[in-house]
């Protein structure tokens, strides 16, 4: 049954004997890969067609393809209302500052953990720094509530201890830029530093030995050996993140900020905006327009950046 299901779409792609030959030869392998192919078609490729809603006036009863066309009305509304500019700016802004801070910290942690003395100490530190990766954003949301809630939060307890006036963080939108930045790093530095550590441990020990003989100190070695050697990793990490620059980490924003209307101006990203309009079922067309714009632009950006990198140095490219 699985084979018959997947035949139509395969045939459309490759209509030659070669394929049939290969299929007959490796029938079992094709059957084994079929479940994943089917699932990917169902979970990713078919829903993609829903992006056509961006150009439609969505009516739930008529469905995705039955709804009437709306031309560019949805886009017009999204951008003219100012929402487009605001959520796009926020998404790019947060991704950039999160990218810079978390990658920089990860690199720092990786270099220190691989280079300092004390095996046990390093292991303990690494375990503790990696720990936040394992908990859900719901728990992180709890932490943030613990720290910043007005009446009982630790932050205000500390302020009170020093006889200072307690601060209601939830009424200061600009503070959340920092809170989001800090907790993003908090959650991801452990994970990302492992990637950099993998790159550092791959460096040939002979390079360092040669530098030792030449009398280089540790800072010089890091600057002239470690740093250039992990450059490919840095570039790949940057590439991956730039390709996602229009995608906000929904779970993070939603758990940190929640449905706090006061903070929307500074913390609303494309993904939280889409989710909110899904919940309220309002402006489906506009939501589809922003989804379309996000998906297409993301693809264009990653293809462009990858193309540029490929030109400069083929080995650094993603694909």
């Amino acid at each position, binding site marked *: 049954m699985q084979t018959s299901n997947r035949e139509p779409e395969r045939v459309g792609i490759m209509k030659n004997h070669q394929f049939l030959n290969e299929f007959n030869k490796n029938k079992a392998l094709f059957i*084994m890969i079929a479940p994943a192919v089917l*699932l990917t078609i169902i979970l990713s490729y078919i829903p993609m067609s829903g992006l056509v809603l961006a150009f439609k006036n969505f009516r739930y009863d008529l469905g995705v393809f039955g709804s009437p066309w709306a031309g560019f009305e949805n886009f017009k509304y999204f951008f003219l209302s100012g929402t487009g500019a605001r959520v796009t700016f926020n998404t790019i802004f947060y991704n950039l500052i999160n990218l810079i801070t978390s990658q920089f910290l990860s690199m720092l942690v990786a270099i220190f953990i*691989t*280079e300092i003395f004390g095996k046990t*100490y390093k292991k303990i530190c690494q375990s503790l*720094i990696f*720990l936040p990766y394992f908990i859900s954003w719901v728990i992180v949301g709890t932490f943030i509530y613990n720290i910043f809630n007005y009446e*009982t939060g630790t932050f205000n307890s500390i302020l009170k201890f020093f006889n200072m006036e307690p601060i209601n963080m939830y009424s200061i939108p600009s503070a959340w830029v920092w809170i989001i930045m800090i907790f993003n790093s908090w959650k991801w530095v452990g994970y990302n530093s492992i990637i950099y550590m993998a790159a550092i441990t791959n460096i040939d020990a002979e390079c360092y030995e040669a530098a030792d003989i030449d009398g280089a100190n540790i800072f010089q070695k890091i600057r002239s050996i470690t740093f250039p050697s992990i450059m490919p990793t840095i570039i790949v990490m940057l590439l991956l993140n730039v390709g996602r620059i229009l995608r906000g980490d929904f779970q993070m924003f939603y758990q940190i900020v929640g449905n706090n209307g006061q903070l929307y101006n500074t913390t609303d990203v494309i993904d939280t905006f889409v989710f909110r309009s899904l919940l309220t079922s309002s402006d489906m067309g506009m939501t589809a327009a922003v*989804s379309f714009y996000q998906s297409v632009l993301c*693809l264009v950006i990653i293809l462009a950046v990858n193309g540029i990198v490929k030109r400069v140095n083929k080995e650094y490219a993603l694909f």
Partner: protein
Amino acid sequence: MSYSTLVNNRIRMSKSTIIFNIIGYSILSVLALLCIFPFIMLLSGSFTAEQSIAQYGYGIIPREFSTNAYDLLFKNPGEIIHAYGVTIFITAAGTFFGLFVTSMTAYVLSRQDFKYRNGFSFFFYFTTLFNGGTLTIYIFFVKYLNLKDSYLALILPLLINVFYLLIMRSFMASIPSSIIESAKIDGAGEFLIYVRLILPLSKSGLTTIGLFILLGYWNDWYNAMLYISDYKMYPLQYMLYNMLSATEAISRISSSSGIEISNMPAQSLKMAMAVIATGPVLLVYPFVQKYFVKGITIGAVKG
């Protein structure tokens, strides 16, 4: 001999090395403390008497020790046990099927003699470059597949992760193809080779990817928020989220335990619930950490 042991063996330390170590120790210590601090506060908060929290806030050590919150949660544990059951079911089913599909697909993609392996790899990889986003998947799930209030809606979205698929592929690429060749000569079919030969040989890869998938299911609340409206079907994390954000969940506990809602230890109750939801992850963390490090390392090398 690695570089760090080389340095460790050197008796003479230059001034710059000492400075470097002082900076390194300070920064790592501060970061490690920042990472563990919220957990300690959470644990302490859950064991603090409610009036103490109201008066002094949370602290590192409970000012006034109390197991009131846990007593209350365990007095009427039906809802928690149920949420645990949902999470365990989703996690077990998702991890099993996810691992099965991932490993089987990765095996096919790792076969050098499979002509279209690159084409299929790109077919999977492309979904990470371009996808319709939450909206389109939501409409498709709810309107066309009728998955609202269905456990399938919690399992399907996390079943195949392309990143894990590629890591699994590199795990399997290290299996020598001569083993597969000789099994073929002995007359074994492809599926039999995969089950009898490849799976036992990829134990460490299966453990690693299995743990990644498992963690994803355990921590998932997002799909529950999108697709589950019946609170009897809430997984643990989403139930926790509800307790934190909505008074409705607290009032359910209040009515089932017979305590006035104004007398509920709301703050410590939230903390206790968070501890209960995270506890299992933190308990197994020391034992499984190395597998995650391994998985990330392999993913990093492949880029």
